[in-house]
């Protein structure tokens, strides 16, 4: 090869590079969309793309639409959290008949599914029998769903509860009978029998007399189990091509790739004139993947949890930060098998030794509100659910290291020469703090708690593990303390308390968990069974009775501190106004709706309050 050839080779390489650059600039062409289209860019979180991602709701790896699901499939109603009001959607009205133990719903007329079929009570029944197949919680409360006429549905309670309405009206999405009907019919063919047998089983467990023999029960039980397995097998591999709903947008499996989902306007939507957008593009990805997209102003709204640094940059970039509540947050859970953490004085001392304001400030900044009342549920629910006599029993554990030290000294602990506490058995306190690595807020909270405890004189090194590993360690009790969630996204505190004290505790059979004994001696009431109280706290229609149970559990949690709630997480959801979305009002009660469960953005879109930034005719597209 001579010099000329050398140059030729170098030339080829340069050409290659040039081609790369041309391609690079060439792909900008894709950004040009129809200039008349009004598009909203959202980010629901992470979803699996096809082929494993699919549209069979309730089966794992279905394509997750997050808050935007409401744009495709709808529920009977929407909920206004701060005002505790229902907003009718597919149902026009409903009533609770406490005497007949019935919940009667009247449906909206003239609603059409994406495939053109009418929405009737038949679809509602189907929409409830699929969850039955999946053992969903909605069926904890009633034993039958009936459709006496095309626009009326009756739910028969067997375990009456005030929380059932949310399951019926908001948790269960309405799917088309044309898609799921066949499966639902099959479920219905054996569901009554199974519910009947379940009732008998409950009696049998309680030792009551049964109308049929045990052998008969087992035989019938096996038969039903076989039928259920057969239906389940069929359902597992059921793969509809489209997600047929009644919402203002449609989605087809062809509109989904690993990067984005495109929702297209449904012309036959019953409330079509309120919808101002032609398309919604949803981008796939977890926080670190979505953040650069936001910073490039490619996404209008995201519900991910963003670390402080990102939030600052988002503000700098011009995003408005929305702060809807989540009704949960991070707390410290203690392993009650570890001495001296099984002494409530030690836990109380730790509570006094941790400055919750600081934890909140360094983890999520303004998006974290330090827990004030330490009840295990959102502080915003305290005034609504805690009677004054219980509320005044709450200790707020104001940051006070002197008091914390006094408590420890009172039970015979001493400070060693290195400043670290030595317990009454002469052992230096060393408590490992387990937390999830990938969750920036948990890891930050863990680091801060670890630092604060070190300052106070408790050596609490943090051990951060990956998210899939964490439950393993948590369930098996392989921790001294851990940072974990408390609370639940539900306006009734029952669910928060259930998660706080039951979900991660020993009754879960999988392991010891934090092993907090649920039978406790609590000052004014003597021996109480917390598990029983929690389970009964949502039963029946007597709110006052529920409040008593909740009060007792809240006070017990506050005094015994099996977990120490640190802060309540609020959204720091970036909203980009002026590019594809016209500025939203300064204030709205909807902003106080739960971030994930009754999100203000989709609600405002459906109510016609979400307007494109630029009028049609101008470029309202991507750039």
């Amino acid at each position: 090869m001579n010099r000329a050839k050398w140059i030729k080779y170098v030339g080829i390489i340069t050409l290659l590079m040039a081609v790369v650059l041309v391609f690079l600039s060439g792909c900008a062409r894709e950004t040009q969309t129809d200039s008349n289209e009004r598009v909203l860019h959202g980010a629901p979180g992470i979803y699996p793309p096809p082929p494993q991602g699919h549209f069979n709701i309730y089966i794992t790896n279905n394509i997750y639409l997050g808050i935007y699901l409401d744009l495709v499939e709808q529920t009977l109603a929407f909920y206004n959290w701060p005002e505790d009001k229902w907003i009718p959607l597919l149902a026009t009205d409903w009533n609770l008949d406490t005497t007949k133990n019935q919940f009667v719903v009247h449906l909206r007329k003239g609603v059409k599914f994406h495939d053109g079929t009418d929405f009737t009570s038949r679809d509602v029944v189907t929409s409830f029998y699929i969850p039955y197949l999946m053992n969903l919680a909605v069926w904890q409360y009633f034993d039958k769903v009936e459709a006496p006429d095309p626009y009326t549905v009756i739910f028969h309670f067997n375990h009456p509860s005030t929380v059932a309405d949310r399951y019926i009206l908001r948790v269960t999405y309405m799917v088309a009978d044309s898609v799921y009907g066949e499966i639902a019919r099959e479920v219905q063919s054996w569901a009554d029998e199974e519910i009947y047998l379940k009732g008998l089983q409950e009696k049998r467990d309680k030792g009551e007399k049964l109308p049929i023999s045990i052998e008969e029960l087992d035989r019938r039980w096996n038969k039903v189990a076989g039928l259920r397995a057969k239906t389940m097998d069929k359902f597992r591999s059921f793969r509809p091509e489209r997600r047929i709903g009644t919402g203002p947008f449609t989605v087809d499996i062809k509109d989904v790739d690993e990067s984005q989902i495109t929702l297209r306007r449904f012309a036959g939507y019953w409330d079509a004139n309120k919808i101002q957008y032609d398309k919604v593009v949803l981008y796939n990805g977890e926080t670190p993947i979505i953040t650069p997209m936001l910073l490039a102003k490619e996404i209008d709204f995201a519900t991910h949890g963003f670390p402080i640094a990102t939030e600052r940059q988002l503000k700098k970039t011009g995003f408005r930060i929305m702060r809807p509540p989540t009704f949960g947050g991070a707390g410290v859970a203690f392993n009650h098998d570890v001495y001296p953490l099984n002494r409530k004085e030690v836990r109380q001392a730790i509570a006094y030794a941790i400055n919750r304001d600081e934890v909140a400030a360094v983890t999520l900044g303004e998006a974290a509100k330090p827990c004030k009342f330490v009840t295990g549920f959102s502080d915003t629910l305290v005034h609504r659910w805690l009677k004054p006599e219980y509320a005044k029993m709450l200790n707020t554990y104001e940051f006070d290291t002197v008091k914390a030290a006094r408590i420890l000294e009172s039970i015979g602990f001493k400070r060693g020469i290195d400043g670290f506490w030595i317990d009454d058995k002469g052992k230096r306190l060393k408590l490992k703090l387990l937390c999830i690595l990938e969750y920036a807020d948990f890891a930050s909270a863990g680091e801060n708690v670890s630092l604060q405890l070190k300052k106070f004189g408790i050596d609490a090194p943090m051990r951060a593990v990956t998210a899939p590993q964490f439950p393993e360690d948590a369930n098996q009790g392989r921790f001294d303390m851990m940072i974990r969630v408390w609370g639940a996204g539900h306006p009734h505190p029952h669910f928060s308390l259930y998660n706080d004290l039951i979900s991660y505790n020993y009754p879960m059979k999988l392991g010891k968990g934090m092993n907090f004994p649920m039978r406790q001696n609590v000052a004014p009431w003597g021996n109480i069974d917390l598990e029983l109280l929690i389970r009964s706290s949502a039963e029946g229609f007597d709110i006052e009775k529920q409040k008593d149970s909740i009060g007792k559990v809240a006070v017990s949690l506050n005094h015994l501190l099996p977990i120490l709630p640190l802060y309540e997480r609020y959204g720091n959801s970036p909203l980009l106004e002026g590019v594809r979305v016209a500025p939203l009002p300064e204030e709205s009660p909807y902003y106080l709706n739960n971030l994930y469960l009754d999100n203000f953005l989709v609600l405002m879109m459906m109510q016609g309050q979400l307007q494109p930034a630029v009028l049609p005719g101008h470029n309202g597209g991507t750039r």
Partner: protein
Amino acid sequence: MPAFLRRLAKNFLLRRLLAMFATIFLVVTLTFFMVRLMPGNPIEVYINQQMSLTGISYQEAQNQAASLYNIDLTSPIWVQWVDYMKKMAVGDFGYSFSSPGTPVIKMIVDYLPWTIFSVGISIFISFILGIFMGMYIAYKRGGWMDHILSSFASITSSVPNYLVGILLLIFFGVQLRIIPFSVMRGTAPAGVEPGFSLEYLWGIFAHAILPMLTYIISTIGGWILTMKNTTMTTMGEDYVLVAKARGLKESRIIVHYVGRNAILPLFTTLVMQVGLLIGGSPLIETIFVYKGIGYALSNSLAQRDYPVMQAIFLCITISVIFANFAADLLYSKLDPRIKSNVTE
């Protein structure tokens, strides 16, 4: 031993193939047990996902999981292993755990080509550019280009590739806004029919640019340094000195004497790299939302989707082993010194 058996036993290729299958068998077995011993199992992961996603209780999530997963994780692990091996022998990879209706083989077929496409092209570009640069700085040793390229090479080859990817994204995508990365995510342009149309090919190439750029930047340093090294070694060889003494033209020496012999050892490394390409890069493909095998691997890992993971690991194992075999073949073909193998 009958004569034909003895002949078979002596057949090198056959022996080599047998050894390869033994390796595959062993590695697959080891992988099987490793995957099963991983902390967390698909049901647990599902339960926790549901709890954090929808705020339902553990009990509820567990009930759902029980009806959802039709998988046997209770029988003894060796029984599961025998079952797995039997099915694999007839090419049955089973169904995804977390997505029960999806055959694993379909996922592999869907994901693998993208990885081969993007990583393959970048290995090729990186190799070509790397050896040219390496050779160039070997000749201009001590010059400013040498210092710049050598430093560049040692830094880029020591910074983990996912960091390279992130930095690319931040500086070119977010800070400088040169790369319109939001539309470059994914593997194919949305709304363009797949096929041999210019638009589609253009599209898939554009979508692969960011991952490819990352691979190239993070691997080219290695090629530059190795090529520089082998070139310098070769330049000191007797035959090159003799060629110089004979007064051959510089360019002829560069190409025929130094170049050829310096690239030779790199070819085997190249082939082995090709073997590794099947693995893709879980982190890079996740960062750029690129639907390759690495993306599938990181998803299935997070969900502890055993069949999918095992199938992907099997692909990786086989490709690595065959690439090593190919590298051996190539080596003996390219290097005249080991034309024949002497055995006693």
